[in-house]
């Protein structure tokens, strides 16, 4: 191939399509649609049917959306396979539960506190384990996840062990209490949307590009002057922070938590959501969470077979859709989008930055 002829796929769009059909416009429309579903259709359905079962599923889905989006940040974007994510979810849940039942702190304090405590544990875990590569890191997170579970189960004085913690107060905000189903759902949905938005801004930025560079080849990223170790720790801390937030939401919406909510299988379920949705793609993580929560509930009629269905779905999706339902674009596509201004044609008509 002639070196001077740039590959057509790499060329910037010299003729920009009308705004409504461009990537930005389409993304805006999708966002509006999703927000309309989250804040219009689902609350309407909850009010209309008045079914607490439906509301419970909607709340669980929103919590798992946060979890899978946060795991996607560390596993999908930064490329660190973590199989102990549920443990940090558990730390957040127990932090919120203990702070509100023992110390009587309000929700406005327990929510960020749960996130920060989980992030602190994430930092402590990340500090020594970040030297590990690939499978060693995955096993370390598995071991730490199980350690946290064992502590939650056996430290009866503090966590009440297998009995769990009851009577956690509902979400409240300066005197307003989310004690109806609808208000509980709305509170969780607002927080979930905010979390996903923050993660979106983080992933689709120069910082996110650095994380992707880390995932593709950390030695190369290191040689390009990216502080690999620090980025890995930061991405892990961010992910555990959001896992802690999700845990606090679980504690305050279900009023009862027990260590079994945070076992290894839960970590696997979250990982399955990320994989089914598409590793590295934030919309994929959201869709994967919806899919993996709603599917077993939709299959409740066939009762005991639903876990088989979950496993089979996971297997088939890896086999048939190796990149997931909403695959991440190519790494080059991300770079191109991020630097598109630099690649725009100058007046003479020659593209800048790629030759």
């Amino acid at each position: 191939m002639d070196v001077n002829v740039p590959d057509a796929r790499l060329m910037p769009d010299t003729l920009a399509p009308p705004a409504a059909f461009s990537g930005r416009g389409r993304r805006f429309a999708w966002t509006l649609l999703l927000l309309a579903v989250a804040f219009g259709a689902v609350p309407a359905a909850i009010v209309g049917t008045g079914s607490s079962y439906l509301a419970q599923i909607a709340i669980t889905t929103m919590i798992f959306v946060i979890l899978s989006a946060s795991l996607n940040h560390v596993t999908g974007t930064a490329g660190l396979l973590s199989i102990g994510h549920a443990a940090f979810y558990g730390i957040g849940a127990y932090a919120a539960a203990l702070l509100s039942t023992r110390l009587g702190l309000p929700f406005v304090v327990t929510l960020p506190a749960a996130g920060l405590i989980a992030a602190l544990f994430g930092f402590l875990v990340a500090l020594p384990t970040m030297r590990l590569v690939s499978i060693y890191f995955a096993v370390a997170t598995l071991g730490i996840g199980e350690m946290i579970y064992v502590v939650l189960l056996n430290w009866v004085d503090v966590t009440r062990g297998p009995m769990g913690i009851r009577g956690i107060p509902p979400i409240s905000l300066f005197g307003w209490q989310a004690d109806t189903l609808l208000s509980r759902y709305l509170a969780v949905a607002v927080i979930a949307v905010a979390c996903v938005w923050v993660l979106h801004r983080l992933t689709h930025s120069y910082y996110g590009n650095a994380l992707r560079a880390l995932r593709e080849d950390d030695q190369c990223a290191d040689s390009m002057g990216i502080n690999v170790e620090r980025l890995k720790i930061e991405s892990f801390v961010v992910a555990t922070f959001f896992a802690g937030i999700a845990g606090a939401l679980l504690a305050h919406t279900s009023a009862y938590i027990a260590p079994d909510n945070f076992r290894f299988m839960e970590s696997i379920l979250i990982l399955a959501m990320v994989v089914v949705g598409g590793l590295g793609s934030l919309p994929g993580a959201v869709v994967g969470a919806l899919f993996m929560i709603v599917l077993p509930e939709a299959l409740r009629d066939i009762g005991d077979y639903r876990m088989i269905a979950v496993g089979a779905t996971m297997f088939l999706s890896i086999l048939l859709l190796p990149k997931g339902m909403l695959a991440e674009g190519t790494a080059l596509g991300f770079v191109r989008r991020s630097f598109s201004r630099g690649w725009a044609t100058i007046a003479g008509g020659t593209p800048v930055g790629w030759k």
Partner: protein
Amino acid sequence: MVFDVFFLQQVINGLSIGCVYALMAIGFTLIFGVLNVVNFAHGEVYTIGAFVGLMVITALAPPLLAVVPLVLAVGAASGVGLERIAFRPFRRFTDEASQKSRAMREATLLSSLAVSIVTREIMMHIFGGDMQGIPSGYLLQQPVAIGPIMVASGSLVIFATSAVMLGALQFLLYRTQTGLGIRAVSNNQLGARYVGINTDRTIVTTFAVGSMLGATAGILVGLYDGAISPHMGFAPGVKAFVAMVMGGLSSIPGAVACALLLGVSESIATEFLSSGWKDLITYSLLVITLVFFPQGLFGHGRERA
């Protein structure tokens, strides 16, 4: 003096638990060495071994020695089936880049996880989620006195079987053509293919051998503990996995040593802590090992992945 005897007894119990972990860890290590991926469904092979053993015992009531070959055969069959379902479809791309790519490895890891979930749920469906008792005639719990200490006959059987199987494995790996093939593929799959080794067949053989060891461990523990359940594979599976990682991923002697170490330290830990905390010992050992010896205790600096 009483303490010493008691202590020795705990060490022997720990060694027999460690032998079970070792039998499973070898399966993990063999498969990891050959394919470079972790087989998360190994715990289910162990459970299958236990349940098939129980079914044979309740249906036919054969002598104990006749159960073992059957369990071995079923273990081999389940290993071959597992390879076919969860691993073969992901080996479509055999070039070096795909074999080293992270995405391929994670896909295979997750597919084995998915297969293990499905297998476990199907077994729960067939046998129910509760513990099932083993007929008392087959239990290996008679106390045997060796000097001042009492040992359950099950411990001795587990020692003997593990020793025989490890010996057989060493013979297979270092004295036969098949073993040479396994070692070659484990060293460099592409190179082995170039010199005319049928890598597909070698991988299937490895799965069969590893799963035979796992299934045997399952029935031994079933006979020793007296009760089995579809969930029984999880804990030893994770422990064996830990032993493999501590041993350095691809070193069989390392995996065996670490499995014994884990077994002994767990059973000693139950003396000082309540039994709920004993798992903490295993995982702390894992994390401490990984932090101070990132390649495992017996690892030899595998090529960085």
